[in-house]
């Protein structure tokens, strides 16, 4: 019975809680049991917050029993990527340099989750400081893809995606700087959304690249993402880059989309995000999905975004530049790891050096060095300056494309999940995995990845939908329509196609 509870969507869980058919304690316990049963294989969590989660659940149950007016998601448990600070709960961002640090404050989105009465199951694994596409750069071990334990769950938010795919959590929070929500969604058969930049407060997100970072939902259905998006979104006076407007009507759009009618919707296929480098199975599923959308009444046209080919290059200058500065604060002086030099004088400078040397992993060091170089006097204009110009050109490509169509679409990632360890020695090959997701971050526009089948290798693939800034509801409508049509064809959700994990005790 409890086993079945974890298979429900968050919306269904919420409905049963509201109807009084189940309690939050039952639901939360079911997930903690599932975590205990599969974590040895999946390792999606860095910290499990069982006691507090059950206490929250009991509190919500009591308030519901007392007839209190509760948030629709009250009592539905959630997992949070370890890059988001949580008061009283360890927060490491996947790095040794923050081992043992317990933040004294909550991120704004965590405050909202707590205020809604959602039990927090724990903190999920990730590439160190969200730098990576496979979660292999975590300082605390890899997370395995529930579809094939020998493969990566994507990254940087592999923990959140794997937790949701393995029914360890119905909902999770991710962050997306270059695709860290959408690409893990694609390779684990889950839904991932990067809202418009500024749509959800960044206050309390340990920053990698401030102008690109965006938190968003990781779920099993488009509607669930919309529900979580609506909860977390909105203006935050503590984040001056947050949008000072109401959250777009994402939940309504998801419900409207599920009704299946896309008549009059213009969908643009980005020429530059297809062809060479895309796995045949990925391309085949993409073409089939276009047919499905056409069948729902949408008009499909091809749109060129000529500057997208420079996006990866610009991204790998802007992101490390900002990261090199954002990560400067990790120096052993105020919090986290502190390492004193083994010999010689113990000066502040030498402690900083020893701490950073021991506390950061190779990928972090690689990007800090790259960014420091790109910002240096004499190189700034050529690197950081040029990259900003490319960014402007990409924004213009989007503007021009959205003059012609309502949304843009592409495969989310060029390949299905690759084998653990297979790209660790080739950073460039790893970076190429984000080629389709990065343009949205550079332009600040929203992107959604929804599962659209399995490739020839039996692994899931994702379909990416991009909308203009602050028009997030458009992609929810199209995403829900596609999801609904595909599930009808399949006779159930995509995760039903995944092999059952062995439950251990």
């Amino acid at each position: 019975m409890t086993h079945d509870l974890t298979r429900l969507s968050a919306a269904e869980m919420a409905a049963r809680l509201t109807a009084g058919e189940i309690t939050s304690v039952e639901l939360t316990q079911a997930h903690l049991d599932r975590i205990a049963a599969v974590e040895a294989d999946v390792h999606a969590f860095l910290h499990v917050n069982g006691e507090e989660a059950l206490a929250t659940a009991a509190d919500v149950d009591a308030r519901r029993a007392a007839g209190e007016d509760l948030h629709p998601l009250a009592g539905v448990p959630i997992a949070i990527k370890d890059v988001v600070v949580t008061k009283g709960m360890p927060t490491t961002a996947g790095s040794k340099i923050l081992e043992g640090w317990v933040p004294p404050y909550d991120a704004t989105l965590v405050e909202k989750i707590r205020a809604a009465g959602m039990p927090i199951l724990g903190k999920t694994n990730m590439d160190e400081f969200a730098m990576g596409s496979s979660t292999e750069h975590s300082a605390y071990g890899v997370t395995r893809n529930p579809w094939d334990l020998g493969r990566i769950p994507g990254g940087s938010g592999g923990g959140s995606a794997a937790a949701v795919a393995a029914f360890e959590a119905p909902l999770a929070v991710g962050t997306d700087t270059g695709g860290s929500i959408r690409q893990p969604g694609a390779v684990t058969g889950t839904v991932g959304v990067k809202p418009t930049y500024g749509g959800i407060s960044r206050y309390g997100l340990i920053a990698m690249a401030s102008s690109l970072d965006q938190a968003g939902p990781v779920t099993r259905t488009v509607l669930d993402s919309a529900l979580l998006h609506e909860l977390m979104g909105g203006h935050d006076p503590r984040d001056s880059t947050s949008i000072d407007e109401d959250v777009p009507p994402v939940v309504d759009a998801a419900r409207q989309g599920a009704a299946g009618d896309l008549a009059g919707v213009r969908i643009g296929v980005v020429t530059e995000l297809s062809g060479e480098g895309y796995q045949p199975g990925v391309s085949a599923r993409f073409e089939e999905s276009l047919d499905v959308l056409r069948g729902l009444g949408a008009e499909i046209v091809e749109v060129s975004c000529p500057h997208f080919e420079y996006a990866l290059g610009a991204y790998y200058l802007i992101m490390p530049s900002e990261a090199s500065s954002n990560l400067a604060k990790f120096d052993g002086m105020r919090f986290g790891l502190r390492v004193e030099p083994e010999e010689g004088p113990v000066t502040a400078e030498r402690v900083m050096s020893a701490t950073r040397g021991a506390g950061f992993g190779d990928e972090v060091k690689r990007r800090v060095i790259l960014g420091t170089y790109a910002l240096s006097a004499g190189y700034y204009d050529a690197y950081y300056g040029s990259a900003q110009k490319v960014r402007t050109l990409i924004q213009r490509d989007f503007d021009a494309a959205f003059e012609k169509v309502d949304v843009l679409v592409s495969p989310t990632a060029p390949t299905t999940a690759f084998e653990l360890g297979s790209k660790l020695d080739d950073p460039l090959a790893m970076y190429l995995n984000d080629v389709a997701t990065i343009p949205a971050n550079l332009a600040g526009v929203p992107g959604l990845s929804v599962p659209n089948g399995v490739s020839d290798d039996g692994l899931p693939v994702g379909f990416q939908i991009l909308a203009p800034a602050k028009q997030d509801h458009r992609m929810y409508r199209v995403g829900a329509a596609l999801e609904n049509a595909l599930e009808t064809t399949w006779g159930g959700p995509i995760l039903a196609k995944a092999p059952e994990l062995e439950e251990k005790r």
Partner: protein
Amino acid sequence: MSAAVDLVGYDEAVRRYDPVIGIEVHVELGTRTKMFCAAEVEFGGEPNTQTTPVSLGLPGALPVVNGKAVESAIKIGLALNCQIAESCRFARKNYFYPDVPKNFQTSQYDEPIAFDGYLDVELDDGEIFRVEIERAHMEEDAGKNTHVGGSGGRIHGAAYSLVDYNRAGIPLVEIVTRPIEGAGARAPEVARAYVRALRDIFRALDVSEARMERGNVRADVNLSLRATPDAPLGTRTETKNVNSFRSVERAVRYEVSRQAAVLDGAGTVIQETRHWHEDTGITTSGRVKSDAEDYRYFPEPDLVPVAPSRAWVEEIRASLPEMPADRRRRLQGEWGYADAEMRDVVNAGAVEIIEATVAAGSSAAGARKWWMGELARKAKTDELELADLPVTPEQIAQLQGLVDSGRINDKLARQALEGVLAGEGDPEQVVVARGLEVVSDDGPLLEAIDAALVAQPDLVEKIKGGNMGPVGAIIGAVMKATRGQADAGRVRELVMERLG
């Protein structure tokens, strides 16, 4: 410390070299909260109590610009006749140091909020010297390091260091001049007068307490010498953290003498920062400024640009208070002080207190007499500011009123003031309690006069003989007998009546 440095006498140095100065002044704004977070700002708090995750640079924290600080910066810009940017961004100045919690300082760099202004500075002799302002920009202060275990609180040889982040994130405005040329031998005086004029403006604008001794206002003084005013600028040094008007003047004088000696010896001045030593009045070499110093500035991605609307700027301009120089000119006219008198009042920092005294009903001359005389001496003896003396402008106005109405004379008034300073109450109360009122009833006076005449018959004879000299002695005796409470003029009249 290095061996004694050769110096060229100042007059000699400025005869042969033309000094050019440049001044960077940092002022701490008196906002309730910090530049980028809601941490309260108060002087003298327990270490690390005025912090938030933002000002501690904790992971995940984000800055938000303090609107009041922006308004203060605009006020300063307008008071310095600057243009106000329509849109300007913050930047990150990246460098590792424990007192900078994020290991970068959030500061404006190539887009200051105010630029291209000037300030007309009044020198000691009343001459006006125009200082051109390049820019005024906003930034945040760093924390404060305390080095423990070394000699004299220096980092060298210290066992460990403590950091207090209460100051980290306090809003600063930095005001940078263009090279100040043409001051010649008066360069030190111009430097002092400029910093002082800024301090007065900060106070008038009410943007800062602007207390030099608390470090609210800090000056970095750049100086270079060149052979003639036509020659290109020489290599400059930057003397950091000069924190009093007098020190600004002394630091410039010292650097002129030192650099002249270096140039005379066919040496080259090294471009470097220098430390000012208040006790010995000299500067010593700090770190050499080289190209290796690369702050990797880039636009702060956590903040949106600051874009003050023109309407808001005009609203602020319209609400600016009268500037100190204008006010001084107006008050001097109203009070009828001579130039020298006004200058003394200004230099003594007595403008406000005299203004308050006049407002309380005193004559301007009377107010000046008390505050620049008796009370100035008292303040000097007790090492206090005039405003910190235990007497109010209202009390001084009342005291002067008692003199003007003839109820007490100057001498009695000084006794009454003593009483006021001793905490015996208002002048009125002291006069009554001490019985200081001028004796205006002729009866007691005549008694005293008669007694004096009887006591000194020889003097009476002389006066009667036409020698008026001894009258003063008689009056003196009467004044003594009445403990100074008699009106000396009236006594003289009565003496003359008695002696026909």
